[in-house]
């Protein structure tokens, strides 16, 4: 016999103590998605300085890239993007019904791989900013 139950509001973050690995993956995917879509609008706005003049574009980018805080934010952006990509791949497999029984392990693997890629990328992302 079929049964139904009230799951409550889906994004009720007040229930965070009850979250399992899959729910945390879902929350992190949402959070990183919000950051990435926010960045998309910011990114296009900054690149739009190319509409003023070639010099305005080059000066804007090089000034921003000369700031340590921007480089650190870029490392954060990398972390967010890499996790969203890896967990996105995981979600595509889950949607196809592949590896469902290991969905929690693949979430932990996404986190670990994100951490490893970000740490390994720090020297490249900070190159030249200290003068």
């Amino acid at each position, binding site marked *: 016999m079929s049964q139904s139950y009230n799951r409550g509001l889906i994004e009720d973050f007040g229930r965070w103590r009850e979250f399992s690995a899959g729910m945390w993956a879902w929350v992190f995917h*949402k959070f990183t998605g*919000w950051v990435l879509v926010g960045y998309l609008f910011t990114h296009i706005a900054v690149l739009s300085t190319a509409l003023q003049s070639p010099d305005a574009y*080059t000066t804007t980018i090089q000034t921003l890239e000369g700031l340590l805080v921007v480089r650190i934010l870029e490392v954060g952006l990398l972390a967010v993007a890499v996790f969203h990509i890896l967990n*996105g791949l995981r979600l595509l497999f889950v*949607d196809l019904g592949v590896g469902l029984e290991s969905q929690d392990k693949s979430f932990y693997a996404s986190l670990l791989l994100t951490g490893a890629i970000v740490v390994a990328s720090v020297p*490249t992302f900070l*190159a030249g900013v200290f003068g």
Partner: protein
Amino acid sequence: MAERYSSFQAGGRRWLWQRITAAFLVVVLAFHFFLLHFVHHADEVTFAMSQGRMQELTYFSLMILFLLTATFHGVNGVYNALINQGLTGTRKTAAKLVLGVASAVVIVQGVRTALAWAGGVPL
């Protein structure tokens, strides 16, 4: 009867497009990061370098497709997150309108910028 967990509208195709764009973006976003941070370095960026890439039709087309898919995927994701928060009725319609206008603005601005770099469509 099985519970229906999807936050997408029944019978709609936005869920499918969200996944098709996801599969494309997984590859192109990784390529974008790799090219512009590891092959080239962010602090070496000049207008001329961006122009050189954008004057290649393949790269130009890829970046336009990247802009379109990323905007759809991002804005559709935000819309679904808002629906998950319980948005209905007039507020849902308003969110749809605002997100639609925001998408149009970012796409138009992105295409204008790409055209400024390439000096027109690089055919």
